[in-house]
């Protein structure tokens, strides 16, 4: 009998209780146990950022983050960005600015940008560029992604803008 542990976590504000093998990554729990396949696995080495999800508001690489470490925590994924079927300003901005092509980096890029904007709702262009340095995209060349994030920030009222 293989070792299993209890896991209780909240994903996109919904509570889940699961039995998992300790080796299980958060990415595997999301994709295989909860059918939340929006989170993508690419480099599987914490380099590319495709698997970026938020755990208690912090961006982590779901490919290498043990699901056990999310026990008792709040996890947010791309599937939780839109509310009541309407896209978030960031999601809408990615569509408006064509901030994706193949779309494989997009969920991670959106979650990284979400964390960035939650910390700094009105970032400079430089701050967006540096904030997303750890998220790779091979299609767009990034320009339209940076534009999309800045436009989403600008669409939200802020101080002295």
């Amino acid at each position: 009998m293989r070792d299993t542990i209890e896991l209780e976590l909240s994903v996109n504000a919904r509570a889940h209780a699961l039995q998992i093998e300790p080796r299980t990554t958060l990415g595997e729990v999301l994709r295989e146990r909860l059918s939340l396949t929006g989170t993508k696995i690419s480099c599987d080495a914490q380099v590319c950022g495709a698997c970026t999800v938020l755990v208690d508001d912090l961006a982590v690489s779901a490919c290498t983050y043990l699901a056990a470490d999310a026990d008792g925590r709040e996890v947010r994924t791309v599937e939780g960005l839109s509310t009541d079927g309407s896209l978030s300003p960031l999601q809408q901005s990615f569509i408006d600015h064509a901030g994706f092509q193949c779309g494989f980096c997009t969920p991670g890029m959106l979650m990284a940008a979400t964390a960035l904007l939650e910390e700094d709702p009105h970032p400079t262009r430089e701050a967006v560029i540096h904030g997303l340095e750890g998220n790779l995209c091979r299609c767009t060349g990034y320009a339209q992604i940076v534009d999309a994030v800045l436009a989403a920030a600008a669409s939200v009222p802020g101080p002295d803008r």
Partner: protein
Amino acid sequence: MIPRFSLTRPATLLDAFAAHADHDGDAAYLAGGTELLQVMKMGFAQFGTLIDLKGIDDLRGIDIAPDGRLRIGAATTHRAIERSPIVRQHLPSLAALAARVANVRVRNTGTLGGNLAFAEPHSDPATFLLACGATVELAGPNGRRELAIGEFVLGPLSTAREPDEVIVAIHVPPADPATGRAYDKIAFFERPAASVAVSLSVMDGRIRRAIVAVGSLTEAPTLVPGAGAALEGVDTSGDGLGVAHRSAVEAFSGLDIAADLNGSPEYKRHLAGVLLGRAVRGAVREASAHA
């Protein structure tokens, strides 16, 4: 894929040691996992049991101890170091360094203790802490001990830590007010190609007691006493810095640098020289601001 293992989550160090003893030879301690889980995934290491240290209070917190030393709990993440008001006040270069480790996701989960325990030769913190004279506090079933970074890191992926010992904290001794510390690196890939840390003090416009450490070049972060000596006594206002820089760089010629994807030994030595110049200027600036 991460191979199968069992997980225990002790609440105290004693429980951690007991768990390690129970799984003799087949257990490893786990903190942020950014390094350990990666090597397990790649098949370079396999353990039947991982002992998660993140629940142990002794490994947490950042404070100034009564003896004036900065104490950073080993399970502190790079992000927590970057954000810590105490670190920002007492060792701002470490906060700046922490803000540039790998990427934001690694900084959010990776810990200082885990980074040092792994002893990856391109480690940012190890190189900087070496120049700061920091020590690593270890606890094991047989008691506690403190090792200087240079004694702790033995080589690539190799440290003086016994398998059952846990890194509890990192201690950085206080510096006199006229001290400046700086770290700079250059990276062409995910990890730095070269890095240089400098700790020096400036009195009456002249450099005193300079310590220079280089990282990523050799098998482990290395102190270069000759480089420090070349800087000592130099007037920071004139063009003496340039001359001193040249002789400091000459001290790098003794380093045993291996070629890798970043380039030849000659090129990487050159890069270290460029970084030394930047780090010295940064440290002098910080020291002068204090003075």
